[in-house]
């Protein structure tokens, strides 16, 4: 029996009662899956909302699973899993630069013991660090001993830290029971296709059961294993997030099909990310000139899938050794040399006390938004627009325009303020550019926004932004983002209604290919 036949039988065996299981899981979780395209009401978007308490408890402090949590809580990845079992055209493992941030890249590999020490060191320094992930730089499940040893050590010494892992899915069915045994309740699978013909354009080969498979055969094997793994996670009540890389002309339209396939198998959240393909990264796509999507293309695809399922839009496509809040990277503070020299005092009580403070902050933020939202009641307008926000976290407008490494983007309408993405502006190898060019880069990155909210901004950039048609807004410094955005939008609508202002649509924006500067 050849490998693929064997595999199909395995798949078929597990397929039998997925629908029944899904319904059970749905009832168990309290999220509806029935009713045609009715999306599961579990959300990544705002606060608990209509989320069942059990799920909310699982995601509320997880920055990668809850958009709202990512303003307050930090994560770290430990690079214990260097080996990989597949090859992707958007990945080049060879390239590592400390100033570069993207998946698949790390500065140093760790042993499980070093990783456990690092987690304790970081958790003691950053009390809002709640999540430990193994995300590579290869595939965690192609290095099962190292990955699970790391989990074992951390579960012993820091039991309050949530464990998660991110996999390509090829080896997932073999390890689902171990994942469940380690109480890993968040798993991310990168699924870029459910059609092997498309998969053959993304994956040159996969290595499975001592054999390298190529072309459509490889992609068929991969997609079968990924979907089987997802079903097995769902059966066990493990939350699964799906990552997809949007590759224009290759899988961009197809990702709608992927979205349906993963939703029907119980995935909790779908994260569609733009392809990173700068030629200097040396990936196949980088070298063949395959472009990534524009900001509008990405948002349109995310919006079209949102009717089906919750979309994650706050992913920063971080490194496999990232540390800190999403959007910041403090990994340089925690190199192996530094952590081995650290005296670590893991104080669970002080971590809990700190996190209790964060919870009070979150509640205040949500309350402020709700209150401001009532001022929009009765407003009738079809206007939808984007704003950019300079923030250091905590859901506040608390960053100086000139210091911002990224802007968070919110969509405003009469139904409120919704987080829809972020734009990097502080980039690798930008040192040689003059200030003016830096400003042009920022304007291109937020060109689809009507306004930019900042804590402070200088006179020159202010004038240039106005010239570019983007209103600099600094009167809400250090206030809550959503509350301020709604207040500003109300005034904007009043001005449009009174004829003082004409509403003009904005153009597209660029998604930058570089990366955040890691050095703090």
């Amino acid at each position, binding site marked *: 029996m050849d490998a693929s036949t064997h595999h199909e039988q395995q798949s078929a065996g597990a397929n039998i009662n997925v629908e029944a299981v899904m319904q059970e899981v749905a009832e168990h979780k309290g999220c509806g899956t029935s009713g045609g395209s009715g999306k599961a009401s579990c959300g990544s978007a705002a606060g608990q909302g209509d989320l069942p308490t059990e799920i909310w408890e699982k995601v509320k402090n997880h920055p990668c699973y809850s958009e709202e949590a990512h303003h307050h809580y930090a994560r770290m990845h430990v690079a214990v899993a*260097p080996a*990989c079992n597949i090859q992707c055209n958007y990945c080049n493992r060879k390239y590592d630069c400390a100033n570069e941030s993207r998946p698949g890249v790390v500065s140093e590999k760790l042993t499980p013991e070093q990783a456990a020490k690092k987690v304790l060191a970081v958790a003691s320094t950053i009390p809002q660090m709640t999540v430990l992930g193994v995300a590579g730089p290869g595939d965690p499940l192609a290095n099962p001993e190292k990955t699970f040893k790391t989990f074992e050590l951390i579960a012993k010494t820091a039991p309050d830290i949530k464990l998660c892992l991110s996999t390509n899915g090829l080896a997932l069915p073999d390890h689902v029971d171990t994942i469940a045994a380690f109480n890993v309740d968040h798993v991310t699978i990168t699924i870029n296709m459910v059609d092997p013909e498309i998969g053959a354009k993304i994956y040159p080969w996969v290595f499975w059961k001592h054999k*390298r498979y190529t072309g459509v055969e490889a992609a068929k094997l991969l997609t079968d294993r990924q979907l089987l793994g997802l079903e097995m996670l769902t059966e066990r009540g493990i939350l699964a997030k799906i990552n997809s890389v949007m590759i224009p002309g290759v899988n961009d339209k197809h990702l709608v099909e992927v979205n349906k396939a993963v939703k029907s198998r119980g995935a909790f959240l779908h994260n569609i990310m733009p392809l990173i393909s700068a030629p200097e990264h040396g990936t196949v796509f980088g070298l063949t000139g395959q472009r990534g999507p524009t900001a509008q293309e990405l948002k349109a695809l995310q919006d079209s899938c949102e009717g089906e399922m919750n979309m994650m839009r706050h992913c920063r496509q971080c490194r496999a050794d990232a540390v800190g809040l999403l959007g910041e990277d403090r990994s340089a503070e925690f190199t192996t040399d530094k952590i081995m020299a650290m005296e670590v005092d893991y104080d669970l009580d002080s971590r809990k006390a700190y996190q209790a403070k964060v919870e009070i902050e979150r509640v205040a933020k949500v309350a402020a938004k709700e209150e401001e939202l009532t001022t929009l009641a009765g407003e009738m307008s079809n206007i939808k627009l984007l704003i950019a926000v300079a923030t250091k976290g905590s859901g506040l407008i608390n960053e100086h325009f000139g210091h911002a490494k990224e802007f968070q983007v919110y969509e405003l309408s009469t139904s409120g303020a919704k987080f829809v993405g972020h734009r990097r502006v502080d980039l690798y190898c930008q040192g040689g550019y003059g200030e003016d060019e830096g400003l042009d880069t920022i304007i291109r990155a937020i060109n689809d926004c009507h306004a930019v909210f900042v804590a402070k901004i200088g006179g020159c950039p202010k004038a240039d932004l106005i010239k570019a048609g983007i209103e600099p807004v600094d009167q809400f410094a250090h206030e809550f983002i959503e509350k301020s955005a709604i207040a500003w939008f109300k005034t904007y609508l009043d001005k449009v209604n009174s004829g003082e202002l004409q509403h003009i649509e904005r153009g597209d924006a660029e998604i930058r290919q570089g990366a955040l500067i890691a050095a703090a």
Partner: protein
Amino acid sequence: MTLKIVASQCTSCSACEAECPNVAIYEKGGTFIINPKKCTECIGHFDSPQCAAVCPVDDTCVIDTSYPRYQPRA
């Protein structure tokens, strides 16, 4: 013959180490090395050399022609 790893191309990902049926691969000085005395080109184990099949960089695990061809015992 045996396989060897072209050190300048090795990413040190360690994927080959776990796949080698002869435990012939080890890490030294940041890259991986194949012990020619232990390597059997995977003859008798698998259809193709496992290190080359799993290596993420093409032409990095290659036949070392300075050694005679491996002769499986009859």
